[in-house]
């Protein structure tokens, strides 16, 4: 019988320092610079780390003691009270419901008018290519816009190694490399897989090795 695993894994808060930022250092700098533009928009491919950055930014705001809120247009409708916050992050703007586009537009305007507060948005496409209301789309392009570059394979290996280390897992490098070529390549999926491997390894009482990974990948549903 498999060993039952007591779920004691800490839920790590996303933080800027866990973001492998070699190519995105400029973005992180702009996000934490209190003098910088108050309206920011990040765009890039799925898995490039935008949501991570948004959440890290919110954590950063919390640390500063600012009222902050993270909103995900993919999951929820935008609440009217969002405007009460002074750090507002809106993820997946490409998927904003038409009514929510008006809400965001209105939030944008009141922040602009108020002269304080910050708005960080993220989406897959550059502002000009967003299929949103014109008045909102141009406002998104009005602020500071960055493309978040996807991580290189080396960046991903480094991020995975760091993640494993934070969990005090001893995982040989060839496992990471194997995952990179045999599993989904975005960092979120890779990190999830490491966590899954951790649980398997505990349950099966076997070290994490390439053969174990192969075994698990075969039994896990194939990547969609």
């Amino acid at each position, binding site marked *: 019988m498999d060993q039952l695993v007591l779920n004691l894994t800490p839920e790590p808060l996303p933080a800027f320092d866990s973001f492998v930022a070699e190519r995105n*250092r*400029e973005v992180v*700098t*702009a996000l934490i610079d209190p003098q*910088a*533009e108050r309206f920011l928009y990040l765009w890039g491919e799925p898995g490039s780390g935008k949501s991570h950055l948004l959440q890290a930014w919110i954590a950063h705001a919390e640390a500063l003691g600012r009222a902050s809120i993270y909103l995900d247009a993919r999951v929820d409708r935008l609440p009217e009270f969002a405007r009460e916050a002074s750090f507002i992050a809106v993820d997946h703007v490409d998927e904003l419901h038409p009514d929510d586009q*008006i809400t965001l*537009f*209105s939030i944008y*305007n*009141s922040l602009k*008018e108020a002269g304080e507060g910050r708005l960080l948005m993220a989406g897959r496409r*550059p*502002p*000009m*290519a967003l*299929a949103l209301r*014109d*008045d909102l*789309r*141009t*406002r998104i*392009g*009005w*602020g*500071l*816009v*960055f*493309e978040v570059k996807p991580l290189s394979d080396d960046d991903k290996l480094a991020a995975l190694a760091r993640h494993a280390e934070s969990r005090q897992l001893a995982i040989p490098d060839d496992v990471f490399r194997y995952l990179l070529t045999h599993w989904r390549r975005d960092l979120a999926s890779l990190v999830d897989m490491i966590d899954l491997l951790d649980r398997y390894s505990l349950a099966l009482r076997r070290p994490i090795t390439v053969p174990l990974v192969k075994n698990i990948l075969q039994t896990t549903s194939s990547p969609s």
Partner: protein
Amino acid sequence: MTDRDQFWPACLARLAGELSSQQFNTWIKPLTAEAGEDALVLFAPNRFILQFIKDRFLARIEELAVELVGELPIELRVGAPGKAPAAPATPPAPRPAASAAAGSAMQAQAKQAAVKAIGAGHESTRLNPAFTFESLVTGKGNQLARAAALQIAENPGDAAYNPLFVYGGVGLGKTHLIQAIGNHVYQKNPAAKIRYIHAERYVADIMRAYQHKAFDEFKRYYHSLDLLLIDDIQFFAGKNRTMEEFFYAFNALLEGGKQVIMTCDTFPRHIEGMDERLISRFSWGLTVEIQPPELEMRVAILMKKAEADNLKLEHNVAFFIAQNVRSNVRELEGALKRVVAYSRFSNQPITLELVKEALKDILAAGNRQVTVDAIQKTVAEFYKIKLSDMHSKKRSRDIARPRQIAMALAKELTPLSLPNIGDAFGGRDHTTVLHACKTIAELRGNDADMANDYDTLLQMLRN
């Protein structure tokens, strides 16, 4: 010959009359002239200005030469005249339309003082003190609207201009323009009851007033204003309660000789779902359009923005950004912010190289550059004519009109020169292209269907 020496001052005087002051200050004033042996040499401070003069103004200057002094060849060079280094080159930075002689430092000071002078009472207006006529860059696209706005700022409530209805695409400076009126009125009369509000907020405020049973108060407040500025009135469409309330407020204000100013993304008749009574009232006063800024105006906007932020921006750098970011003023300003952020991040001065690096992703994204081929194809399909008709010599209207539209679109969406566009349409002359652009611009002003078609095509091509 004295004739030749006098030509340039005379030519300057004529050009000053023909061009907008923005155009004149940006492009013509930086030039210095020197009479050569057999030609007049015009020196431009850099090759961007030279190129621009060559494309846009050289033909006109040559015409004037013929008219004023007979045959006089004109030569363009980069640099300054050799013999007169003492005369300092006029700074290429464009100055606002105000008198050029006045020291810009003094102007800036005056502006700062003005901004400071706007005190606590100003807050209730919800106006942004930075939006003034002085900080508004003027060009072909908005000079008419600006002139009307100035009139109203001087004489708010004048029946001939009441209401003022300003319409145009997003991000072209409608809000800036109407707030400039508000600020001007406030400066002249701080006791005036002024309120700027975005239509979306107005709708929400009405709802709240109902919920809190504070409706009478709401009504009293809006009916008591001296100047009401409502932005993006198209938000009222389909909201019957709001339209009804606004109808009463509007009537009360107009009857009392109070000024109402609105902006909208489209012509009154084209607002879908808007109350007919309101639509007809919107047209009682003056309706003006703001059009997208041309290249030179975009350059001027960037220079102005940089000046306001105490940034040193070289003309060629502004030119490069303006040339590559063409959609609207907001994205233009966004691009400048990006450049500044990158310069700060990398601790390097703003040079052309740095700008190219900073805007790499924006440029790459915009570089799904629209081609003439794509324009011809889209327009041909839209009007159900053959693609070959784009190049053909046929002149029947059902073919010529779409062809003209395609030419106008090519001018707007591609960086090609008029002769290049002419070539792409079966080797036509650049004057034919120019004629097409003018015709279409006119038609768009008079013919709603044409305006609609054009905007639709523009959208199709941009996406």
